[in-house]
């Protein structure tokens, strides 16, 4: 095709005299930067630190369950640790993970823009993230939180732990998320260069766009919910407190109106990443572009119609139960459309199993199980049995961990672009295998134990479940080792890694058209926009270990 984005001079492998990392130096140049790439990197670092923290909490929880009675902590501490694990992983890691860190870095470049629409707002949103994180974590020192990440009333308003700090942290983090989404929508609407039409955008951008819709419409409801909760706790206004004539089920409606769509804030960007990875590493045009694009938006909108499936056993009316159960199944349609299109993309492609692709394939497997087990929970009759058991825990970990897998895959995919260095492919695959294996051991066991009736959030358990719990803990340790390996070789690559070529994978979206790392203003020459899934314009060059533009007129 004549419209491939390739043009001479755009992919020089060694035009890195000045890039965004070396553009200015000093701590101040990072702290006050308005460059979306640097903000993305700062988000990445913060999120990885939070992930380490959340991971440590996870390990503590799993270690505690090695024995049926107290192993390493008291029951109260246990309540606090699993609450922290949930809150940190959800609010600090998974929700901002892909959009704020990866999205910030690549969205403007993929679009062909110089920056996001509101760079100052972008920086502000990063600092809101920091402030929210500090507030949420301050709760540890100020009495911890033992409500679970869902903060259900009336327990959360009567416990004397630091719920207010945690929820106000969530409020601030919510606004960080809102501003990121707002920035992305405006950028996609207003900063597309000529030629970049809606249907030429990489699918990752469609996913981020759909995510941003949810961030804007759902997150404010979380905001008002947690504010009411904090006010309730501080002044006993009684909107949710049955003692004062309030209605605790109303709190759950409020909470899940955000928190179900939030599941799609977490999973949609992951799906966007996978759409990119599958196509690039199959070296084949994405199959069903428009279906994947529209299904992102469909998921975003359908995701608002199903929140009541979290409340089947909470006193919700049977009328609402039936409606929400029926609607829940509708969400599986667009999700399945995506999976089928990924499989069709791989069909007869020339698949190369580089590390990002290993993660992409893991994602499809894990998300498949996570999605299918959701059907049991969306069905009223089975949910009564499975509700609040480890089956639920396993289900949402299969989904959420899918997001983490996609996040790590995206990190590997864009690592050369972000840092200008290549990591060890060998260790990359080993680590991916460890994480995949550990993950399945940890959580598949929990499906079994949950369906046998092991309730979630319990400190003690009966002897019968001991071997399941121990196996699950072993799986968690394997995952932990996998992530440590990732940390080691990525850190190593920063100093010893091979210089990354501009296009190590043969991708054709615009970020592969600028050097690695990209220059400060992204593009020296405004890029020509073509079909970002047409890889025919690139050929592999063994000398630089990456792809270079195919000479014009050459056969392919």
């Amino acid at each position: 095709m004549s419209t491939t984005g390739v043009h001479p001079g755009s992919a020089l492998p060694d035009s890195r005299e000045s890039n965004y990392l070396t553009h200015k130096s000093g701590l101040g140049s990072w702290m006050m930067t308005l460059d979306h790439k640097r903000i993305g990197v700062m988000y990445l670092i913060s999120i990885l630190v939070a992930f380490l923290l959340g991971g440590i909490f996870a390990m503590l929880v799993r270690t505690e369950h090695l024995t049926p009675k107290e192993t390493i902590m008291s029951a109260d501490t246990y309540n606090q640790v699993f609450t922290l694990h949930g809150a940190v992983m959800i609010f600090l890691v998974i929700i901002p993970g892909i959009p704020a860190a990866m999205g910030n870095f690549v969205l403007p470049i993929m679009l062909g823009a110089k920056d996001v629409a509101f760079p100052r707002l972008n920086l502000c949103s990063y600092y809101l993230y920091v402030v929210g994180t500090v507030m949420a974590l301050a709760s540890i020192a100020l009495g911890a939180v033992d409500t679970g990440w869902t903060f259900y009333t009336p327990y959360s308003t009567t416990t004397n732990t630091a719920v207010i700090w945690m929820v106000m942290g969530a409020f601030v983090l919510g606004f960080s998320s809102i501003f990121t989404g707002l920035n992305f929508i405006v950028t996609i609407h207003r900063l597309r260069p000529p030629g970049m039409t809606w249907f030429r955008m990489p699918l990752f951008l469609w996913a981020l766009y759909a995510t941003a819709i949810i961030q804007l419409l759902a997150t404010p409801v979380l905001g008002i919910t947690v504010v009411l909760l904090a006010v309730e706790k501080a002044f006993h206004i009684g909107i949710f407190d049955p003692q004062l004539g309030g209605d605790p089920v109303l709190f759950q409606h409020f909470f899940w109106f955000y928190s179900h769509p939030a599941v799609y804030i977490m999973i949609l960007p992951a799906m966007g990443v996978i759409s990119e990875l599958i196509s690039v590493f199959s070296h084949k045009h994405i199959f069903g572009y428009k279906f994947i694009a529209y299904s992102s938006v469909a998921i975003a909108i359908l995701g608002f119609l199903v929140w009541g499936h979290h409340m089947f056993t909470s006193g919700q009316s049977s009328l609402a139960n039936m409606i929400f159960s029926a609607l829940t199944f509708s969400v599986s349609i667009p999700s399945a459309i995506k999976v089928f299109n990924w499989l069709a993309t791989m069909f007869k492609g020339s698949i190369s199993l580089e590390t990002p692709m290993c993660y992409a394939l893991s994602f499809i497997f894990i998300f498949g199980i996570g999605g299918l087990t959701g059907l049991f929970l969306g069905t009223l009759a089975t949910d009564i049995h499975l509700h609040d058991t480890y089956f639920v825990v396993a289900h949402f970990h299969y989904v959420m961990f899918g997001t983490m897998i996609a996040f790590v895959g995206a990190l590997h995919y864009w690592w050369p672009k972000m840092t200008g260095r290549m990591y060890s492919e060998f260790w990359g695959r080993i680590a991916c295998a460890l994480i995949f294996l550990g993950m399945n051991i940890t959580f598949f066991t929990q499906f079994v134990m949950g369906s046998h009736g092991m309730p979630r959030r319990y400190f003690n358990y009966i002897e019968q479940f001991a071997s399941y719990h121990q196996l699950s803990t072993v799986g968690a340790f394997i995952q932990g080792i996998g992530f440590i390996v990732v940390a080691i070789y990525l850190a190593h690559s920063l100093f010893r890694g091979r210089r990354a070529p501009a296009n190590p994978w043969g991708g054709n979206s615009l970020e592969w058209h600028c050097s690695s790392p990209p220059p400060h203003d992204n593009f020296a020459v405004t890029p020509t926009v073509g079909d970002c899934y047409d890889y025919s314009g690139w050929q592999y060059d063994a000398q630089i270990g990456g792809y270079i533009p195919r000479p014009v007129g050459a056969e392919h």
Partner: protein
Amino acid sequence: MSSPAVEHHHSEDQGHVVSLGLLAGVWLALLVLTVVTVGAIYVNLGKLNLWLAMIIATIKALLVAVYFMHLRWDRPFNAYILVGSLIFVLLFIGFVMMDTAAYLPEIDFKDTLHP
């Protein structure tokens, strides 16, 4: 920027300037409608009073949005955002009202059971 064909550019850079007469007219209409709202409660329409008040409020809101907030001269997308967010508000409130109304008898029943 979306495709130029769809795009509607104003010739002058400063956008649409609303005439003072129109602004003042909207202002007066809002004041009159406020008087109507207050007056309406003295007419007993039963349940319809609430709906009447909401209809008047919505007319006022539309006046503010369309003229004071320039929606009439803006890109239609801004209006879609407003309407879209209101649809989600209705969805939220509608579902919750439906559910709470459906389980209310259960609570009242318990109330009579243990007075």
